[in-house]
């Protein structure tokens, strides 16, 4: 990977296309969840581009796009509109894509990542605009097959400034973006289902004979995984450097090149130079009227924004005293994070104990059962109660784990499980004293050893008392009674 060791600085900007989590498409009522559907079953005259069909924007898509912008600290313009981007390609049935050109829905935002020097770094976001996705093409030996199910799915294109300085920072930027969009309920960001794609602009900058060289960039199109992005950036930046030193046309060329990425070969390949901006012949979409986001609506969406992951993690560490690791695990899933907070409330505090249960037993059982937090029979109130009865000595930690297993299956409250399974531990000193007496009577040798100055024998004696009481004695009480008796 290209890091500090490389003889050049990397300058990276990313365009991220992400499908919005709507039920229906951007401009028609066809279902937006195209992945896995039988070909061409989610299409209508609008998304097939049939003559005379008219688009009507999806209110939810516009709200989600604005929510994304607000979460990314963008400005919301007073006026915005849709434009036609004209180009001919078989995945685009109308011969144009409805997009946004000069008045995007969101402008001038930022998000913060950990920079390569470990310090917080802001990556500026130029714009985030709405457009429609295209159909998908399949190539076989005889030609090209087109499925228009994806055509017209709402797509948010988020364009960063070239503020990213390494492949690692690029990954952190995308991970952060993904987390924010999922948390805000804007997108599901399912890369494996084609729900997000990236175009990455890569250039290198270096000194040569006292002069700064900044040759034209490469645009790597249509990356669909974080891994592809990492590998493609490393490959292409090294290739630019090599081409410069081999005296290639990069030395004289003024414009960027467009390349694709072949994960199989681990290399980029040149692509047809797509149209320049002028060639797209953008003009205002005559079939749609402009949008003027009402300030009241903007404020309503802003108020509905959940706490963002980076802030929530910081708060969990600061207010709950959790480790960075636990905070990261809990905040990886919005439902898990709120489960944790509800459980802390139910426990009346004890956030560390609650976190242990949630990141330990709960997550383990969820993983085994491949289930979602929301579907679990164990509730935050149950975890709160479990923490409380461990703390007040009603049950031991070991018994609590046994109780959890039962709660997981039956959904019963901890106290009911403790009662029905007889898990309560005995703290009653009369019973414990009797058991201690019996153990002391049978272990002269061990007691002599203890008195001779070997306190480590105590553990074995505690174990014998516990065994005698069927493991239900409170070990702290046993230890103190025993010490008192033989000390």
């Amino acid at each position, binding site marked *: 990977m290209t890091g500090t060791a490389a003889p050049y600085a990397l300058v990276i900007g990313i365009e991220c296309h992400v499908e919005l989590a709507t039920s229906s498409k951007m401009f028609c009522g066809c279902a937006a969840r195209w992945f896995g559907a039988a070909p061409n079953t989610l299409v*209508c005259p609008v998304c*097939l581009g*049939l003559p005379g069909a008219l688009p009507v924007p999806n209110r939810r898509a516009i709200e989600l796009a604005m929510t994304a912008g607000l979460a990314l600290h963008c400005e919301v313009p007073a006026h915005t509109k849709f434009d036609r981007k004209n180009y001919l390609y078989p995945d685009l049935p109308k011969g144009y894509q409805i997009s946004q050109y000069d008045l995007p829905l969101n402008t001038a935002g930022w998000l913060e990542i950990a920079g390569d020097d470990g310090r917080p770094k802001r990556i500026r976001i130029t714009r985030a605009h709405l457009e429609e996705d295209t159909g998908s093409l399949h190539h076989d030996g005889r030609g090209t097959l087109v499925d228009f199910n994806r055509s017209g799915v709402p797509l948010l294109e988020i364009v960063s400034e070239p503020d990213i300085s390494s492949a690692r920072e690029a990954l952190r930027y995308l991970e952060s973006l993904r987390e924010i969009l999922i948390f805000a309920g804007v997108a599901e960001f399912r890369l494996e289902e084609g729900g997000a794609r990236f175009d990455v602009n890569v250039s290198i900058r270096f000194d040569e004979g006292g002069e700064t060289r900044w040759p034209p960039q490469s645009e790597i199109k249509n990356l669909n995984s974080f891994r592809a992005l990492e590998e493609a950036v490393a490959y292409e930046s090294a290739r630019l450097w090599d081409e410069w030193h081999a005296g290639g046309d990069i030395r004289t060329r003024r414009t960027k090149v467009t390349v694709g990425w072949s994960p199989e070969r681990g290399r980029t390949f040149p692509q047809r130079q797509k149209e320049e901006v002028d060639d797209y012949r953008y003009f205002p979409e005559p079939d749609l009227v402009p949008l003027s986001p009402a300030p009241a609506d903007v404020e309503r969406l802003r108020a509905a924004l959940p706490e963002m992951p980076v802030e929530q993690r910081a708060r969990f560490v600061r207010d709950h005293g959790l480790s960075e690791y636990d905070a990261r695990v809990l905040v990886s899933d919005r439902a898990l994070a709120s489960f944790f907070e509800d459980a802390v409330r139910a426990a009346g505090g004890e956030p560390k104990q609650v976190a242990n249960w949630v990141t330990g037993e709960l997550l383990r059982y969820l993983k085994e059962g491949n289930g979602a937090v929301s579907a679990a029979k164990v509730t935050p109130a149950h975890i709160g109660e479990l923490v409380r009865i461990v703390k007040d000595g009603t049950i031991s930690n070991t018994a609590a784990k046994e109780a959890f297993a039962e709660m997981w299956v039956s959904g019963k409250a901890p106290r009911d499980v403790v009662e029905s399974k007889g898990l309560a531990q005995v703290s009653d000193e009369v019973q414990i004293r009797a058991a201690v007496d019996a153990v002391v009577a049978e272990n002269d040798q061990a007691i002599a050893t203890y008195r001779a100055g070997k306190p480590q024998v105590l553990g074995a004696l505690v174990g014998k008392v516990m065994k005698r009481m069927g493991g239900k004695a409170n070990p702290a009480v046993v230890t103190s009674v025993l010490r008192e008796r033989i000390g």
Partner: protein
Amino acid sequence: MSTLDRSVVEKVAGLARIELTDEEIERFTAQLSVVLDAVDRLRSVDTSAIPPTASVLPVDNVMREDVVRPSLPLEEVFRNAPGRDGDYFRVQTVLEQR
């Protein structure tokens, strides 16, 4: 006066994937020049006091609710398709992938 030359017409035809003969290029260059000159006359109107607009319609914020409606049955989908292969549209091979 517009100075449209034939290279512009060739370029626009290329973007539209339309093949034109030499004679057509000549003819369209002349015709399009007339159109552009006519549109050019709009520049002489003083618009400094008129707020910019993207639409001539006196409405904005027309939207629909996010509700799924039935899509077309397959036989309707392919009714006018130039080529069908199973449940896909078949088109001429595209050499370069986007």
